[in-house]
């Protein structure tokens, strides 16, 4: 316990590192998954290859992906970019299907009437389809957020500092305090991400919080 109080600075630093290493890929992954999911929905033949293909990326073991990244990207082994890119890949793996299914859940009659009123495909996507897909996408994003917070800790093994570093530290020294501190911080971080996504989704979907037909 005293160890934790003595190392609050370190824990804080690790938590911040951990937070951005998990959050930035979440945003980048969403940005990449959106056009992929849209294409999978737009062109029938692409759905299976795109959704199954991106889904397969999730099966790559994270340690292997972290180690491969410098070889593929030509970066330094300690470069946090490796972690960001790897985590982005996982996020894309989780979100592509979500985006495709979210867009697919928009009723045909809504798409047809949007088209018939002269909304072009791009305007229709941003003003009608994506807003209506927000609940589904938010649900996928919550899963991806928790997954990211968890997987990032593995990057401690390639020496990128974040909460995972507390686990390796505790492991090497056979000392429980840092491990407990890291676990608690991970859980708090995951809950915080979840909360932010839920609040954002609520703000973006005011129509879902109104009563039914009178």
């Amino acid at each position, binding site marked *: 316990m005293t160890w934790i109080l003595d190392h609050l600075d370190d824990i804080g630093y690790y938590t911040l590192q951990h937070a951005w290493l998990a959050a930035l890929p979440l945003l980048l992954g969403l940005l990449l998954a959106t056009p992929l999911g849209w294409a999978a929905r737009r062109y029938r033949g692409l759905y299976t290859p795109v959704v199954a293909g991106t889904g397969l990326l999730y099966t790559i073991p994270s340690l292997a992906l972290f180690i491969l990244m410098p070889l593929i990207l030509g970066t330094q082994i300690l470069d946090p970019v490796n972690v960001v890119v790897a985590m982005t890949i996982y996020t894309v793996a989780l979100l592509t299907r979500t985006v495709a299914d979210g867009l697919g859940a928009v*009723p045909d009659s809504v798409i047809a009437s949007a088209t018939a009123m002269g909304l072009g495909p791009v305007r229709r996507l941003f003003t009608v389809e994506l807003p209506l897909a927000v609940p589904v996408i938010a649900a996928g994003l919550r899963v991806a957020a928790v997954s990211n917070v968890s997987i990032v800790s593995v990057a401690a093994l390639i020496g990128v500092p974040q909460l995972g570093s507390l686990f390796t530290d505790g492991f090497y020294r056979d000392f429980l305090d840092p491990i407990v501190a890291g676990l608690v911080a991970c859980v708090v971080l995951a809950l915080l991400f979840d909360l932010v996504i839920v609040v954002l989704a609520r703000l973006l979907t005011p129509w879902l919080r109104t009563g039914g037909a009178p």
Partner: protein
Amino acid sequence: MIRFEGATKTFPDGTVAVGGLDLLAATGSITVLVGPSGCGKTTSLRMVNRMIEPTGGRIMIDDRDTASMDAAQLRRGIGYVIQHAGLFPHRTIVDNIATVPRLLGWDRSTTRNRALELIERVGLPASFAGRYPHQLSGGQQQRVGVARALAADPPVMLMDEPFSAVDPVVREQLQEEFLRLQSELGKTILFVTHDIDEAVKLGDQVAVLRVGGVLAQVADPATLLRDPVDDFVADFAGRDRGYRGLGFRPAPSLTPRSEPAVTLGTSPEEVRRSGNAWVLVVDDDRRPLGWVEPARVTEPVATDRLHRGGTVARLDGSSRAILDAALSSPSGRGVVVDDDGCLLGTVTSAEVVAALQSPPGPDSSGQP
């Protein structure tokens, strides 16, 4: 005016949805496309605003080839109403209606005022403006769908089974109000339905399509019912064509017989005085309320004793309405009222039928 000139749609798999359709939908009138499923009526409709591109022929709107126009521009100038309305669930009613005006770049206050005006025009309370579609009933949503299609005042409207998904009572209301609205607005309307009753009720002109998008017959509703061009149209126009056709024939000139009537609260002795098996009851303004059987009247006439099965017709209504009044009346005497709904007298079905069999008058739509 919408003109189909040999419009054809062949899908990549070789299916011919519409096979060389020639049809003219006149300006300011309602043209109904009707036919069994697979007859290409929706495909024909969607070729007009190019949601489906024709593979052959042309479709002209006021002598402009739609193929030469920008698709989005074309669509913003055409009102479109579909089954289930297709409202945007995430937009309020006022925002839904404002969709096309916004795309056209109208300023905020003009757009909002126009949307609010339309909400009332289609018979909805102004308080609905800030609601979301799911807070409205199906019929109300469909009214909003019509308002949204009218928002930018397009000269042409396409309507694809707009009233099919609501219950029969609401459907009838929507149809009546649609006709009232059209009499005020005079849009050029192409209307798709699978329901021949709806087609003859709403259409100035009805086009019956066969499977494969081939025109079987185009005619005004009365002609279609009276003189179907072949077995297919006859079958499709359905049973009771003769009777339904009377709906398009003005009532024959008849002089209603005067009918002794009593008011509510009349004593049993008074009711029995006429000696008839059924006695008509009217209110203080002589508006018919229903019939009573004197034999069963034991106390002063009250509303709960009334037989209300009989319909009421007007002399300037249709032949169908006046014959129905006679047929539906328990006394066999059909009640005829004036413009204010006050009793004029009664007619029997025999009198109506006799008058219908006499040579058609000059205002009848009969042809040799």
